[in-house]
């Protein structure tokens, strides 16, 4: 009797296996939920960064009564910008100072970095560059990875821009590390997407921070945003640009953009703002094929993120919202233009 009682107190093998199986199933159910919660947290951080950019735009406006256009170019007669810059002849792009994100640094609580760079000189001036650029010493400022410019949902990749700078004539035995950004301004609408929206097939420059003449018109007054600040996109996500991604997958092939030669540092050049194109989105072997889809297809010119269903944007009024990838071309085109006179607006 006592022997039988002690046997009844233990679990049998089958009971144990069943319990383990149930626990396994429950953990299996839980894991995706945990992953989703982590992604939701990353996304929240990502949208907070956009909010900071939206506020910085308005702080800049409070100070100067204008916001910086996506890019500015120095006049050739601007001797302060030109003198002592050995790269002027080399890049042909040496007239460009910091893009809009660089101009916003003082308004993103980055005054430490702002004090180390010279916003009145080109970004490819030895004063603003770090080694291995010959003569450059500014390691602290220019190599700083600023979390406010980075979306945590984006996979981390190496950021060696040697393939970008070496063909321009810079020393080939060096690693050109640059911090990256996942946010861009839009310059306007590319003609291929304008055609999809039934607009005249022209590449426009009339976005919130758009300009077609970066030498003379490098400021935007809020009064120029006649569609309304809440109906106009200010910054969107364009993530993971060290690689070329097509609908969530890195593109195969051997084109120069595969290696991430496109510069996407926050202070960058023409890459700090893009013209969204109309893409078919059908073939990974031909990612730039024309069509009428725009969002989350290809991270070269178009809004792109690693969230499902669309990208995040900050509007001119500083509100952050989600831009669904199923948005119609007409609504998207209206959201891009600052003075198109359209009456549509994107739903939340």
């Amino acid at each position: 009797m006592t022997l039988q009682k002690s046997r009844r107190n233990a679990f049998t093998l089958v009971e144990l296996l069943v319990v383990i199986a149930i626990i396994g199933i429950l953990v299996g159910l839980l894991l995706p939920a945990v992953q989703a919660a982590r992604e939701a947290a990353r996304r929240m951080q990502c949208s907070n960064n956009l909010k900071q950019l939206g506020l910085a735009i308005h702080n800049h406006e409070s100070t100067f009564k204008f916001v910086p256009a996506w890019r500015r170019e120095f006049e050739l007669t601007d001797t302060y910008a030109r003198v002592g810059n050995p790269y002027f002849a080399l890049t042909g792009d040496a007239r460009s100072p910091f893009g809009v994100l660089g101009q916003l640094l003082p308004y993103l609580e980055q005054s430490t970095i702002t004090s180390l760079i010279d916003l009145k000189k080109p970004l490819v001036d030895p004063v603003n560059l770090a080694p291995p650029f010959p003569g450059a010493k500014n390691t602290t400022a220019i190599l700083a990875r600023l979390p406010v410019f980075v979306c945590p949902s984006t996979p981390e990749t190496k950021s060696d821009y040697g393939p970008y700078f070496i063909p321009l004539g810079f020393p080939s035995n060096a690693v050109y590390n640059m911090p990256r950004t996942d946010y861009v301004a839009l310059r306007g609408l590319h003609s291929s997407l304008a055609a999809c929206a039934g607009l005249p097939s022209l590449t426009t420059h009339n976005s919130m921070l758009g300009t077609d003449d970066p030498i003379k018109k490098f400021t935007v007054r809020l009064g120029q945003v006649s569609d309304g600040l809440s109906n106009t996109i200010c910054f969107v996500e364009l993530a993971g640009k060290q690689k070329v991604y097509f609908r969530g997958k890195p593109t195969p092939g051997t084109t120069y953009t595969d290696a991430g030669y496109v510069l996407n540092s926050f202070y960058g050049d023409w890459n700090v703002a893009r013209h969204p194109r109309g893409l078919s989105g059908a073939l990974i072997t031909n990612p730039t094929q024309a069509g009428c889809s725009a969002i989350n297809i290809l991270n070269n010119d178009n809004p792109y993120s690693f969230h499902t269903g669309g990208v995040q944007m900050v509007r001119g009024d500083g509100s952050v919202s989600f831009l669904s990838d199923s948005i119609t071309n007409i609504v998207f085109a209206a959201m891009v233009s600052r003075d198109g006179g359209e009456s549509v607006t994107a739903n939340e």
Partner: protein
Amino acid sequence: MKMNLPSQRSFIRKSIDAVLLLTIFVSGCSVSDDEKLIQVFGSIKVDGKPAEGATLLFHPEGAQASTVASGTSGSDGKFALISNMKAGIAAGNFKITVIWPDPSVKPTEKQMMSGMSFDAPDLLKGRFVMKEKSGLTAEISSSTKELPPFELKTK
């Protein structure tokens, strides 16, 4: 070993039932949403020759439909229609616009790397860009497989 106690057996059976129920519950929530897309092909000739790299946009008529379908022609001038990243096109009436960027004009590597915007000139000189003026239409029904060839003239 005496295992077949009634209470033990019912415990195992209940566990198995629970697992089965869970499996059914988890796998039971899949939704299918396929709008009917028709696989349609076509071809385009400009001045009698197949046009390579021309982009045709099919704008639906009617206020409800908003998806614009597109097709890009290959070297033989043939194209397949794509809408919303999927092959095919919904049935209906369409107005068509055509752009034919000059395939011989390509951006330089430096232009591409520095991210400058680039537009190759339209070989059709913008004649078929606006849907009200292009004069090209198509009617697509569920039985459409191939559209009559588009013959455009630049002169």
